């Protein structure tokens, strides 16, 4: 624990101290300029990494936010005479507001459409900066002078320290945020947006918040940029800069503060390195060497595909050969960036810091921090008194897909405290019914009532918030998160501290309590010993149990288990039955969709049988097993013959 703290925090402190003392020892205004730019780009790239790394979206608008923030700061100084801090606050605000406005429509989209939306936003903002000449001076540019800080003029080293302090603050705030529920939500929504919604966390709102935060950091960096150069031109913030920023984040390593910082230093230093012939030769040769070694190692160990091994070598080879053919390497700056970026994206997808971090963790054997003892289960999941009154009612529920009547007029009542089985042959409409209840699909018509009140429809998130939790037939775990984090993410009512407190690092106590609570639930399903194992590394059976624990973390009124025994080995089915029994004992109402008739018979108080989208039988397990319509649905009956009324279903 102490070692971890010393190593991680120690590295940060040493880096900060080094950077802060350079201006005291080196008296060189050019170097100071580069360092200032490094701090500014550090902030900018940390912001960009929130979307590109943590949200996993290709964001092409960060250069635009830099520009908008720069103009906001510049104009608030030239027009309103703002001081330094007010102007910086202004540029942050502009980034936050415009980022939020762009995020609302853009983040309903995925992948390429999102990239396109941000690309258009950048082009649009360049147009506006260029054309709104009365305000921005257009292509002529905007000159300003650095305003005073609390009434004192700021000289170059002073401004550098200000940038450095802001970088350190941003760093700490982001670190606090990423190690909180917010960070978990960012990870989760990349793995499974559907489950993130179904766990009541809200994919969309977290994406919007993350994007707006990243944009506000872009704006802040823009403000600093304006005060650093004291002259702004719209052409500085175009697509070209954006590609270079992406290069920084990807090359440095996504999802890493150190990666963003490393990327920033690369961006700042690269133009200088490229303009020096000897340096260029050395760098391209080094790049080729790394590509060859990494490629050969990957190929030998069969961890990478041949293309991943060869393509970076070719790209780096082009760089080396091109270096000898081309007269002036600076003219080829973009091409050189392109080749380097290509090699990294293909050959080293985690970036240089991602690669280094894995290596260093192994070298120093840094353990994850210790876990608190598990909380008492009664605290996390109090036993409820169940009164047997109707909890969930489906009234004439219909859901059609075009001409397919997947759910056709289903009526069903689930009583509080019961295990209610929902069975039927494949394609009978069970899963669709459950998907309508849980909000994945809106019903075509009909009503769903929870405790007599209409349940929200068509939104997984709202239904989850109303007290319904579910598992998925095809697992929807957050594969990259640990078992513990999977449960913690869903833990209802555990995170009450507002974002500002989280950013300041004042939410650690509730984080500890959440860990204890999640451990209690993992204990219930027998996974306490594997709390730190990544979900995708668990066995299939354990993954199923983890989904149940995660759903329980919602402390639901109603728990829907969608074929929990599907694909389980026989011993695991017995474990599952025990788990469901112990959940039932805590008074939680359960809808169980299942094919294993023995499981259904053992657990269910009531069973509803559907076929062809309609209810064909309802009653106790024994009653429905003898129902001729049920036997016909499952086994089929030759025309004209009646099934023997007494023959029970085979189990």
């Amino acid at each position, binding site marked *: 624990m102490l070692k971890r703290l010393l190593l991680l925090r120690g590295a940060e402190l040493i880096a900060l101290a080094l950077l802060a003392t350079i201006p005291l020892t080196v008296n060189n205004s050019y170097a100071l300029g580069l360092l200032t730019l490094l701090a500014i780009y550090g902030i900018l790239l940390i912001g960009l990494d929130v979307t590109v790394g943590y949200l*996993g979206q*290709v964001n092409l608008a960060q250069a635009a936010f830099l520009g908008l923030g720069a103009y906001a700061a510049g104009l608030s100084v030239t027009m309103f005479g703002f001081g330094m801090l007010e102007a910086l606050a202004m540029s942050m605000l502009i980034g936050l507001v415009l980022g939020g406005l*762009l995020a*609302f*429509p*853009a983040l*309903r*989209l995925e*992948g*390429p*459409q999102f*990239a*396109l*939306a941000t*690309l*258009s*936003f950048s*082009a*649009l903002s360049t*147009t506006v900066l*260029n*054309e709104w000449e009365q305000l921005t001076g257009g292509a002529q540019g905007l000159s300003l002078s650095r305003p005073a800080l609390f009434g004192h003029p700021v000289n170059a080293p002073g401004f550098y320290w200000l940038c450095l302090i802001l970088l350190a603050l941003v760093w700490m705030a982001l670190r606090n945020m990423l190690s909180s529920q917010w960070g978990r939500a960012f990870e989760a929504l990349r793995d499974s947006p*559907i489950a993130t919604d179904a766990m009541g966390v809200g994919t969309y709102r977290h994406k919007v918040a993350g994007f707006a935060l990243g944009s506000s950091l872009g704006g802040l960096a823009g403000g600093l940029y304006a005060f650093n150069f004291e002259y702004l031109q719209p052409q500085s913030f175009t*697509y070209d800069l954006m*590609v270079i920023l*992406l290069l920084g984040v*990807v090359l440095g390593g996504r999802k890493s503060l150190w990666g963003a910082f490393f990327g920033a230093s690369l961006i700042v230093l690269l133009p200088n390195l490229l303009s020096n012939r000897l340096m260029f030769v050395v760098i391209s040769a080094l790049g080729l060497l790394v590509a060859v070694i990494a490629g050969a190692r990957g190929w030998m160990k069969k961890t990478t*595909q041949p*293309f*991943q091994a060869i*393509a970076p070598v070719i790209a780096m080879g082009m760089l080396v050969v091109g270096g000898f053919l*081309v007269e002036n390497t600076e*003219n*080829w*700056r*973009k*091409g*050189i*960036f*392109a*080749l380097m*970026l*290509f090699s990294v*994206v*293909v050959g080293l*997808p985690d970036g240089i810091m991602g690669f280094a971090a894995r290596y260093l963790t192994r070298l120093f054997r840094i353990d994850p921090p210790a876990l608190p003892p598990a909380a008492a289960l009664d605290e996390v999941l109090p036993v409820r008194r169940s009164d047997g009154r109707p909890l969930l009612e489906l009234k004439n529920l219909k859901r059609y*897909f075009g001409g397919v009547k997947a759910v056709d007029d289903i009526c069903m009542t689930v009583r509080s405290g019961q295990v209610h089985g929902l069975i039927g042959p494949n394609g009978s409409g069970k899963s669709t019914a459950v*998907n309508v209840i849980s909000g*994945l699909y809106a019903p075509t018509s009909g009503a769903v009532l929870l405790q007599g009140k209409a349940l929200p429809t068509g939104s997984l998130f709202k239904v989850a918030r109303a007290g319904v939790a579910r598992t*998925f*037939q*095809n697992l*929807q775990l957050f594969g990259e998160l640990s078992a513990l984090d999977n449960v913690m993410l869903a833990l209802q009512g555990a995170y009450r501290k507002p974002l500002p407190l989280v950013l300041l690092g004042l939410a650690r106590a509730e984080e500890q309590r959440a860990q204890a609570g999640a451990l209690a639930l993992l204990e219930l399903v027998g996974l306490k010993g594997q709390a730190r194992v990544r979900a995708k590394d668990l066995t299939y059976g354990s993954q199923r149990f983890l989904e149940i624990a995660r759903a329980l973390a919602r402390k639901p009124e109603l728990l829907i288990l969608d074929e929990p025994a599907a694909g389980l080995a026989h011993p695991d089915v017995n474990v599952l039955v025990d788990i469901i029994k112990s959940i039932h004992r805590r008074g939680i109402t359960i809808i169980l969709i299942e094919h294993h008739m023995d499981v259904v018979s053992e657990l269910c108080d009531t069973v509803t049988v559907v076929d062809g989208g309609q209810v064909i039988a309802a009653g106790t397990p024994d009653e429905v097993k003898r129902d001729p319509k049920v036997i016909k649905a499952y086994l089929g009956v030759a025309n004209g013959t009646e099934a023997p009324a007494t023959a029970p279903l085979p189990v």
Partner: protein
Amino acid sequence: MLPESRMNTFIIAQMAVSGALMGLVYALIAYGFQLTFATSKSINFGQGELVMLSAFFSLTLLDLGMPYWLMVPGGLLFGAAMGLVVERACVRLSLEQKNEGWILLTIIFGLLGFSAAENIWGRDDRPFPSPISADAMHFFGISITPLEISVAIGVFAVMGAIELFKRKTLLGKAFEAVAADRDAAQLMGVSATHTIMLSYGLSGMVAAMAGILISPITTVGPTMASALILKAFSVAVVAGLDSGFGVVVIGIVLGALESLTSFYIGSGWREAPGLILLILALAVRPNGVFGKASIRKV
């Protein structure tokens, strides 16, 4: 002399018609996006650079003394070859790994192409000769040049030929099968990889055609890439990435709108309506005006 208001109507009509003809080229580039999106759900973010590189290559062929009508197939072949390069270098790996790395990689391809064009052919815009006359003809007071008409003919010819290919040939049906359901097509013995290669080759060819058609009107230069690609993106997204009919309609509308904006507000704003439309369309109808919505599955 015509009265002022009639004059205005004529100007508007003139602007709309010449804008619409330009819009057809945007539609053609957008159609190139649709081809690859259909088979692989990916598009080439460096398509603008592909248009530009093909145009420069064709110009070099002309400079070397090749007759115009021989240059066209040469340029198209070059475009197809570049499309295949994009597929191999930037798209295939990330499709196999089922991630969105292709967005970044095709952007990188565009950057490399831009840098190469800048250094090989220079940063200045150059005229692109065409045997078709640029002398205006007058219809109802609106002047149109044979050159502009040739753009319309070229666009419809290429799109028609590809649609015919998709419907009438076995290879084209394989294309449609992969577009409808990649896994099922693969189980039926259609190679998805080859079909995706085909779609990128066709898409590159379409881009080259767009370059050859538009260059005599706009001139050729490295910056034509970014100007064209944004408009083509707008057209593709507003229309929907799966509607060939949609891109033509939206292309015409957007081209006209752009030309009118540039006349009434200022040429610096000419890109604004497309960009605003794009963001709005994404917000209101993410699948495009002519697109189909998809159902989420778990």
